[in-house]
């Protein structure tokens, strides 16, 4: 099972987890990204996520295919939410299942790292003072975002 999607509704980690579970697999690793209340020292009130949807879909499909190839995961999924998210809302869920723990954990890390560098998705961060700004991870100290 390989499943990548961009959605305009809430992402439910439990649903994604169920989708990758498999009786052949002893290990499922999951990553859940959520909207933080503070980024780079500024109080955040919400984030608008937008994407070049067709390319983002293609890149996410490709990343999962690479993860399967590299780590031999039995099933792997990523769901990314778009639109207006509030503090605490889930923006992304990644889940990977393997017979053994190490490849499951490695695959999850691989997918989130790859998403961060090559999937065309953007964040317009809204601050408590009414200002909003496009997030550019490279402009900061490398610690922006999850």
């Amino acid at each position, binding site marked *: 099972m390989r499943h990548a999607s961009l959605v305009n509704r809430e992402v439910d980690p439990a649903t994604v987890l169920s989708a990758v579970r498999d009786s052949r697999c002893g290990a499922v690793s999951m990553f859940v*990204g959520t909207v933080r209340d503070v980024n780079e020292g500024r109080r955040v009130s919400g984030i608008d*996520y*937008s*994407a*070049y949807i*067709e*390319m*983002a879909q*293609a*890149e996410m499909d490709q990343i999962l295919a690479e993860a399967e190839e590299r780590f031999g995961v039995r099933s792997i999924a990523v769901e*990314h939410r778009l639109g207006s998210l509030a503090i605490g809302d889930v*923006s*992304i869920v990644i889940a990977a299942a393997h017979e053994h723990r190490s490849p499951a954990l490695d695959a999850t890390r691989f997918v*989130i790292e790859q*998403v*961060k*560098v*090559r*999937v*065309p*998705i*953007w*964040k*317009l961060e809204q601050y408590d003072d009414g200002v909003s700004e*496009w*997030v*550019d*991870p*490279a*402009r900061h100290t490398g610690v*922006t*975002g*999850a």
Partner: protein
Amino acid sequence: MSTVTVQLFASYAESFGETTLQISIPTGSTVRDLIARIRLLPGATVLPDSPRVAVNRKFALPEQQLGLGDEIALIPPVAGG
């Protein structure tokens, strides 16, 4: 000369004030040539030294030649996850 459509997103769309640009370039132009033309437009100050360009939904190298009907987009710094 031919005219290509370039999709813009996020901070780039904001800076150029458009979600697409129509750019006239000589046949056989590369991604690098296209960027050089785009730099002449108002709003281009938003572009970094080496802006990422996608052709047909894949990141393209500067020397890639553009063809008729290619889907072209300028990709601002990504921030997914």
